[in-house]
C-alpha cells in the first residue's frame, strides 16, 4: 500500500504541474495548484515530517489558494461570475 502511494503521488504531482501549465483557464490552474499542495502535504506525512504536513496544508492549500483566488477576482478572471 505504502509503496503504491509512494510511486503514485510523485506522478500525480507531475501531472498536476503539467495541468497547471497547460490549462487554459486561470481558475482551473489555481484549483489544480491547490490540489498540488494537498498532495505535497500527504507526501510530507509519508516522509515522516508532520510539521511540514501541517504547514503545507495550512499555507499551500489554504492561504496561498485564497490569495490566488482573490487575485483572480481582482483581475476579473473568474468565469461564470458577474465579473467576467
Amino acid at each position, binding site marked *: 500500500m505504502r509503496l503504491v502511494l*509512494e*510511486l503514485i503521488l*510523485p*506522478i500525480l*504531482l*507531475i501531472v498536476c*504541474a*503539467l495541468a*497547471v*501549465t497547460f490549462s487554459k483557464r*486561470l481558475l482551473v*490552474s*489555481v484549483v489544480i*495548484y491547490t490540489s*498540488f*499542495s494537498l498532495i*505535497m502535504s500527504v*507526501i*510530507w506525512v509519508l*516522509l*515522516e*515530517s*508532520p*510539521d*511540514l504536513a501541517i*504547514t*503545507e496544508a495550512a*499555507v*499551500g492549500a489554504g*492561504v*496561498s489558494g485564497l*490569495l*490566488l483566488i482573490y*487575485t*483572480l477576482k*481582482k*483581475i476579473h*478572471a473568474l468565469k461564470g461570475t458577474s465579473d467576467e
Partner: protein
Amino acid sequence: MEHLLINHYETAAVILFGIGFLNLLLQNNLVKKVIGFGVMDSAVYLFLASQGYIEGRMAPILVGEVAHAADYINPIPAGLVLTGIVVSVSVTAFSLALIQRLYQKYQTVNFDEIVQLARQKGDE
C-alpha cells in the same frame, strides 16, 4: 534507471523543478508565472526532505526519555523546508499584489502585452 526509480522522489523533484523553471521563464501570464515559481520551490523542498528521510525511522519527535540518533530521521531538512515555505508564501503574496496593481494600470495580466503597452506609452 534503477537508481532513478529508487530515488523516485528526487527524480520527480527534478522534473517538477524543470516544469516550474520553464513556467517562470516562458509563461506570459503572470499568475501562471507565480504558480510556476511555487511549483519550483516545492520541488526543491521535496528534494531536500527526501534526502533527509531514512527508511524505518520515526519523525523527529521524541518518544520516551532517552533519545538514540539511530531511531529518528534527520530533523535539519524539515527545519530548512519550514523556513523555505514561509519565504515562498511571502514572495507569492508580494508578486500577486504586484500583479493586481499592474492589472489596474494595463487591464491585462499578460506580461508581453504589458511591456508593449508600457513601451507605447513611452514610459519604460
